[in-house]
């Protein structure tokens, strides 16, 4: 046979169609045969009928196709419509909501506002030591948070509970203000809680002010609970608050951990500084002065008031002002002596620029 004879192109469509059909039916027959062999082998080997059970069991496990029922015949929302009576508040609650309701109602779950309850309890007996027992019991159930030594003046670091529905969004902070006005409750576990200074006694205020910033926000009239070095408030504000709350003669600002970041002031001001040790009633003026001076000064000056810690008034000396980022190495040695006096220096004084560093800037 020659190859030319085999050409398909000479064929017309019907023949082509018939050819295709033949090939197709061959394929189908192959498939059927395959199945037959498989079944026959299964029969002869004895495993063909294994997947069947007896008729009785087949009926038991038949697929159910009724409305309101799943394929096994179980009712889906059987308990949804039932209602239970809460033993605490005697309200009728839907069954599926009963557990969360109980959690909130008894104040014992993770997301319940225990703090709210505690606040209510404690507001009845202010500054009463007997309260601590009650609150300790409450906190025994609390696995999340260990009870600190100070009850009220606590540092609430970012203790955000991401699952809590009460979590309030934090807004960008503005200088000198507590931006989170949503949270007026001082005892919630939110980030920017403030303390209401009116409710605290002098001793507590003092202890509070030694650890916290304490600047009173204009908005909420609450004290800032951030650390002594919180970037929102300046040392001036902190000092002003302490004077305001504790009186001019009080020195409640701790020295131990505060590094005087202020750039060194020249020694020529030393004498002037010593005279300023007595913090007269001019404290009211100084914050505003410093604010205005801050606003008007140029680069080098503006850096200092920000960094400077308004530390104590009738000071005991602490370690020399190590100088913050501004002072740098050169001036730190100088400032060791002046460091003492640096602290007491009022911001009113015109601050000479630091010797080496800022000259470059200017």
């Amino acid at each position, binding site marked *: 046979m020659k190859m030319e004879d085999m*050409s*398909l192109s000479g064929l017309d469509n019907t023949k082509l169609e018939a050819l295709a059909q033949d090939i*197709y*039916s061959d*394929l189908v027959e192959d498939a*059927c045969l395959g199945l*037959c062999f498989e079944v026959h082998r299964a029969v002869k080997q004895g495993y*063909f009928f294994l997947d069947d059970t007896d008729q009785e069991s087949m009926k038991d496990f038949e697929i159910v196709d009724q409305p309101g029922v799943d394929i096994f015949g179980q009712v889906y929302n059987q308990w949804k419509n039932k209602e239970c009576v809460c033993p605490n508040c005697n309200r009728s609650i839907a069954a599926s909501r009963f557990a969360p309701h109980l959690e909130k109602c008894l104040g014992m779950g993770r997301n319940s506002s225990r703090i709210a309850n505690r606040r209510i309890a404690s507001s009845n007996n202010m500054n009463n030591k007997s309260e601590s027992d009650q609150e300790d019991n409450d906190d025994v159930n609390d696995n999340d948070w260990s009870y600190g030594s100070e009850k009220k003046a606590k540092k609430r670091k970012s203790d955000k509970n991401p699952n809590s529905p009460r979590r309030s969004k934090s807004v960008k902070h503005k200088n000198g203000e507590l931006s989170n006005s949503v949270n007026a409750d001082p005892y919630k576990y939110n980030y920017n809680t403030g303390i209401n200074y009116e409710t605290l006694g002098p001793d507590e205020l003092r202890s509070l002010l030694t650890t916290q910033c304490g600047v009173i926000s204009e908005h909420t009239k609450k004290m800032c609970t951030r650390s002594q070095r919180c970037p929102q408030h300046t040392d001036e504000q902190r000092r002003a608050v302490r004077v305001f709350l504790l009186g001019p003669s009080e020195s409640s600002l701790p020295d131990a951990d505060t590094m005087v970041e202020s750039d060194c002031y020249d020694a020529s001001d030393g004498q002037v500084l010593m005279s300023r040790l007595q913090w007269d009633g001019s404290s009211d003026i100084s914050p505003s002065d410093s604010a205005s001076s801050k606003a008007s000064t140029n680069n080098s000056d503006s850096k200092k008031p920000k960094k400077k810690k308004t530390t104590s008034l009738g000071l005991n000396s602490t370690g020399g002002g190590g100088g913050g980022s501004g002072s740098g190495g050169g001036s730190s040695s100088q400032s060791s002596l002046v460091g003492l006096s640096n602290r007491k220096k009022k911001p009113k004084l015109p601050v000479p620029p630091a010797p080496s560093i800022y000259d470059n800037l200017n």
Partner: protein
Amino acid sequence: MSKDSQMRAAINQKLIEMGERDRLKELLRAKLVECGWKDQLKAHCKDVIREKGLEHITVEDLVAEITPKGRALVPDSVKKELLQRIKTFLAQHSTL
């Protein structure tokens, strides 16, 4: 006529040689399982076997019973697709 038969033989040979036939076979099997044809036919087998008796069933019996039914049960979509593929193959390889 002999030309036709010769031609058919040649085409079949080509189909096998190029592996196309096996591919088509696998494709058909997969599609038949997918569409439930196999399970249907198996159920029919069960009936036949129960009828004829488990012990005495032979391959020939099965084939005789199953094949015509199987051919009829193939869904149209599967059939069309397979025919399409065959025709494509023929068209591509028309000159031998």
